[in-house]
Structures are given as C-alpha cells and as structure tokens.
C-alpha cells in the first residue's frame, strides 16, 4: 500500500532531513555572515547575524589581490581543458565503437588506467611536464586533464546508441569519418557533451595540487593557489578573506546548479558500469 506523499507518516522523515539540511548549510551561512559583517571578526562573542552588514569587503578583495588575474588564469586553463578533452574524448570514444583487432586489450588498458589515482603520479608527472617544457604555462596545467577515461566511455556508450542505419546511410552518401562524427553522432549526444564539459570544468577549476606543483611564477597562479596564498599572507580583522572565498565559490556553484543533472550522471556512470 503506497502512502500519499503528503501523508502524516512522513513528518519524522521531513524533520530528520530538515535537521540534516540545516547542519549541511551551517558552514555556508557562517562564511557568508562573516564576509558581510562590519565588525572585528575576532571579537568574542561572534554574532549570529552580521553586524552592520555591507558589501564593501568584496570591493576590497577585488582591489587588494589580483583577483582578475587569478580568474583569467583559471578560466584559460579550464577552457583549454574543456576544448581539448572534448576533441580527444570524442575521437577516442568513436574509435572504440569500431571493431578492430586488439580492441579488447585497449579497453582493458583504459579501465586499468582508471585505477591509477592522479596523486600516485605527481613526481614523474612533474618531471615529464618539465621535460616537455610546458612548466609554468597554461598548457602545462591543462595537459593531464585533456583526456579522461570516464568521458571516453560515456561518449562510446552514447555513440553506440545511435542506430547504425543512420551511420551507414551517411557513409553511402560519401561523408568522411570525421564528418560523420560531427554531423550525425554529436548532435545526438548532447547530454554526453554536457557531461564532459561539466566534469572537466569541475575537475579543472577546483584542482589545487597540480597547479601548485606546476606553477612557479605568481602571475600564472590560478584561483585555488591565490586563495591559499591569500590565507598565508593576510591576517586582518575584516571579512576580506571570506569575501574572497565567497567570490571564488560563486562560479563553481552557479555552473554546478545549471548543469546538475549532467554532473550527477557523469559521476554515477562510473558506478553503473561493470
């Protein structure tokens, strides 16, 4: 017997979920409150509501630190990662839909590469990047993210779902392979493209360890590096640091909320595989 959604038996669940949501949102609230308050943030006791709230901490942050520069670096690196990964992943996904000798071995190889976490490779990856001469450049920071195995398999699955008659008809019409991909397969794989874009965006935007290793000069630093540097350099009694944190979080949150479904689908496609 199914219960109606609004029935009274659901109230305990709502109560628990509201409590859980409240606990999960407290860190957000505390930081936003601190970034808006006009008082000395270290004074005891801290107020629950911001005292004399004003937005000028955000203005201070904009001028105090090279926020524009950090934003530019992060954006360029992320744009390169997204563009490159779309190109490489689509190509690799398409190649894997074809049957060729050794296909099984390549798939096994890729799956086993997935087991190697990035953190187990940082030392040699640094040496390789330095040997390639792209240390301290945008390309060097974007390079490891130019192809990811999850996205290749998402594209492969998406391409395999296209009825082969369409592809054969296009081939009879004389289209080259790449044209087949762009004209026929990609327009039918919009959600795979969106998943690739959002996953690569989140991984590239939030990555800290790799830029920390690769970037040597202050003017090439990305947003996470700028944030960490600001933390160690400034210790003032205003909420400027937290205004910086809020400013940094807003793009990530906005993009996530815009593309929530695709992001979750990309994360769980690894769960339902195998």
């Amino acid at each position, binding site marked *: 017997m199914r219960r109606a959604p*609004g029935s009274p038996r*659901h109230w305990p*669940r709502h109560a*628990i*979920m509201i409590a*859980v*949501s409240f606990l*999960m949102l407290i*860190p957000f609230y*505390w930081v936003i409150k*601190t970034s808006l308050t006009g008082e000395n*943030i*270290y*004074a*005891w*006791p*801290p107020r629950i509501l911001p005292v004399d709230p004003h937005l000028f901490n955000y203005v201070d942050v904009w001028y105090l630190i090279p926020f524009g520069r950090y934003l530019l670096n992060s954006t360029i690196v992320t744009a390169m990662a997204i563009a490159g990964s779309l190109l490489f992943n689509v*190509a*690799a996904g*398409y190649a*894997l839909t*074809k049957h*060729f000798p050794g296909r099984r071995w390549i798939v096994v190889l*890729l799956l086993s590469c997935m*087991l*190697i*976490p*990035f*953190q*187990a*490779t940082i*030392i*040699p*990856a*640094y040496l*390789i990047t330095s040997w390639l001469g792209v240390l301290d450049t945008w390309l060097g920071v974007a*390079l*490891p993210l*130019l*192809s990811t*195995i999850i996205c290749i398999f998402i594209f492969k699955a998406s391409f395999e779902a296209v009825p082969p008659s369409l592809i054969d008809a296009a081939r009879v019409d004389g289209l080259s392979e790449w044209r087949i991909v762009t004209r026929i397969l990609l327009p039918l794989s919009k959600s795979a493209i969106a998943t690739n874009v959002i996953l690569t965006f*989140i991984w590239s935007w*939030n990555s*800290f*360890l790799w830029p920390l*290793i690769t970037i040597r000069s202050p003017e090439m630093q990305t*947003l*996470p590096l700028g*944030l*960490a540097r600001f*933390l160690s350099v400034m210790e003032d009694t205003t909420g400027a640091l937290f205004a910086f*944190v809020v400013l940094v979080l807003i793009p*990530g949150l906005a993009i*996530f*909320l815009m593309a*929530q479904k695709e992001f979750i689908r990309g*994360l769980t496609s*690894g*769960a*339902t595989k195998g």
Partner: protein
Amino acid sequence: MTSKTTWFQRKRTRELALVVCFLLPSLAIFFLYRILPLGWNAWLSVHAWSPLKAAQFIGLEHYEEMLLDDDVFWQALANTLIFIACSPLAIAAALGIALLVNSDLRGAAVYRTIVFLSYPLMTVAVGIIWRWLYDERGGFFNYVLRSTGVIDQPMKFLQSFDWALPCVILADFWQVLGFYMIILLTGLQSIPQHLYEAARVDGVPARARFFRITLPLLKPSIFLCIVVGILNSFTSFDLVYVMTNGGPGHATELLITYIYKAGFGQTRFDYAAALTVVQFLLLVVLTVIANKLSGGNAGSLERQ
C-alpha cells in the same frame, strides 16, 4: 578479382589508420600521465637521483630508510589509515540519508541538492571555511560549546594533537557525504520494486526486508563508496594543506602531504617516489581486501 581484394584491404587499413589516429592523443595522455609515471616511480625509488647528479642504483635503501628510520612516515601511514577507517561512518550516514530521500517524499530533490551542494566546491575553499569554523575566536564550534556551557576556555581545535585529525576528517565528511549519497541513491533506484512487493506479500518485516534485499543488492554501490573513501585520503591534500599543513607536529600528516613535502619541499624526488610506491601498494591492497569483503567481482552478484 584481384582488384576487389585490394579495395577491401585498402578499406581495412584505412579504418585501422583512422582508429589509431583517433585513439592516439588520448593514449598519449594516458601513457604520459598514468602509465609512464607508475613505472618511473618504481625506477626512481630504487635509485639515488637528484636533478644535478646522474642516477645511481641503490636498491632498497630508500625503503630501509622509510621503514626503519622515518617516524614521520609511520605517523603519516597511521593517519592515512585512520582517515580511511572513518569512511564507513560516512557511508552509513549517507545510506541513511539516501534511504530517507529515496522514498516518495515531497521536496526530496531539494534535500538531495542541499546535501550534494558541498561536493563540487573547491576543496581549498572548503578548507578555509572549516578552518574558520574551528577558529577559537570567531568559529562556530567554540561559540556553540561555550554558549551552552560545555567548555569554559576557547578550544584550539586545529592546534591540539588529539583533535586536529578528527577535525580534518569531519571537514572531509561534510564534503564527501553528498557523493556517497548520490552513488547509493543510484544503487537504490536500480533495485527492482517487485522484490519488495513480493516480500511484503510474504509478510517479511521491514527490517528483514532491508537486510535481505536492500543491502545485498547495494553491494556494488557500497564497494564503489569504499574505493572512493580510500582514494579520499589521497585527494585530501588540499584540505590538510590549507587547514593545518600537516601540523601540529605531523598530527595530521597524510601520506600524500608527506610525499609533497619530501618531493617539492626537500626536493628529494627519489625518496618521494619510494613513498608514492608504498602509497600505491597500500591502495591496491586495500582495494583487493574490500573486493574480497564485498563478495568478490567488485561486489556484483550472480542471479539467484
């Protein structure tokens, strides 16, 4: 007839050339940044090498130094294991939330979004947020504890030898809870409803339904969560770096932060490579154990 075979052969080679062409960039990236580093790590760990001198084979000397002389390594290893051991708590909590949210609750999507909101955030920002929450002057925890009279003096959470690691683990818990919930939700939604109906018709009580139907069918998702939990101790570099930088006195040092310090702080690439090899072996061993515990074959089940 010969012209036909040549045409066919040319088409096959063309197709092969195309496949190679399309696969090459991706394979190059994976080779450069996944496979080659694995081998290079192993090679570096048995050589003495610095960027100025040539490499020199020294066998297992680095491992000797690590296991016998290096207290920081053992501390980092212990901390990493504690970190990993706390992930089942997070998984259990996420399972509870997933069960609550999975029912036909009004507004379940809102609850899901709120719990998952913390996952796509920049981990550095999360570290700064939680560092502020733990602050002894303006932080939330001290405020609550002192206001309710539990403690009198402000407590320096991140500077105490006992509390620093649990505090970092709690911050990570907050961030990763949403991810576990999503994975478990996906697993829950793939359980066919007719099993529950049949059990209800047979008069099976709710608790037995949970343990006999839900849990076994969730094994693949739980296994994935455990693997993510193990990997989490590696990706928590950002959190530890921002919150405590391994302190106080290596109380929150994880293997990954120690690798970073050895490799890029002390510039001992060879020793850091040896540490990386040990960390990777730890990952493999723990994953295999988790696999065995969840019934082998990555937790997937045979059809009954």
